[in-house]
């Protein structure tokens, strides 16, 4: 099982779906950001799995995964800063109470 590409890809798909559900369903903005991190991790797992089973792609897959991690770190920084900035005005981390941002 640890030697089959399908097992890794299915695991990655399940993790991505869990992240998708969290992003769509949670009310807390930080929980939504955590769900995004889970989805990025799922993508990384898929990339690593493809690299592990295709020898000429292996180092490239590791590099792409490292780049994804760097972008995820940047995204988390900016996202959390935005959440904190909104929290300072609204006193709530719940996204459905940010409705007046539409107007």
């Amino acid at each position, binding site marked *: 099982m640890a030697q089959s590409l399908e097992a890794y890809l299915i695991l990655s798909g399940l993790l991505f779906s869990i992240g998708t559900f969290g992003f769509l369903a949670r009310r*807390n903005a930080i929980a939504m950001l955590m769900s995004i991190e889970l989805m990025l991790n799922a993508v990384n797992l898929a990339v690593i799995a493809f*690299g592990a089973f295709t020898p000429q792609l292996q180092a490239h897959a590791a590099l792409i995964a490292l780049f994804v991690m760097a972008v995820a*770190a940047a995204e988390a920084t900016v996202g959390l800063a935005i959440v904190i900035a909104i929290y300072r005005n609204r006193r709530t981390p719940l996204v459905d109470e940010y409705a007046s941002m539409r107007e």
Partner: protein
Amino acid sequence: MQFPPTIPFLEWAWDDLLFIMLAGIMLAAAFFVVVGRDIVRSGLAMILAFGALAGIYVLAGAIIVAAAQVLIYIGAISVLILFAIMLTQTKAGPATLVFHRQAWAGGLAALGLTVLIITAIINTDWPQRVHERLWTATAEIGLLLFQDGLYVVALQVIAVLITAAVVGGVFLAKPEDVPDPGEGPR
């Protein structure tokens, strides 16, 4: 004492047992992140999910990515998220509704996505597979990154991006008018 090559009675390789355990831990922790009522516990469960995923990277032969996972995700992003949770938590937080009222639609979408992805994976004939995984050569990564010039531009762009993200994060999270220190609590 001689270690048996496969698990007794089950005839699995030890790798498989490790993979199933790590996958189970990771999926359970990720599920708890998504449905957990207390968001601090969600953040801690996220660290567990990242750690199990680092183990899966080692099983897939990507040791350098596993190390980076521990350093970046467990070491940096988790701490960042935990601090943001502490800064934005209200007392009423855990007591209020965790999900949107339309969460069932999100559940349906996630379920549909799961079915779609798994069907696509099972029905595709993946080419170029090897039957023995290889370990990623870390030296090869360094050469690709710096010597061969394939990823030099990407590396520079990432550097600029991270700098911009840090500056932007500080700018966004900084209070609008910082009072003089000593003028009372901020």
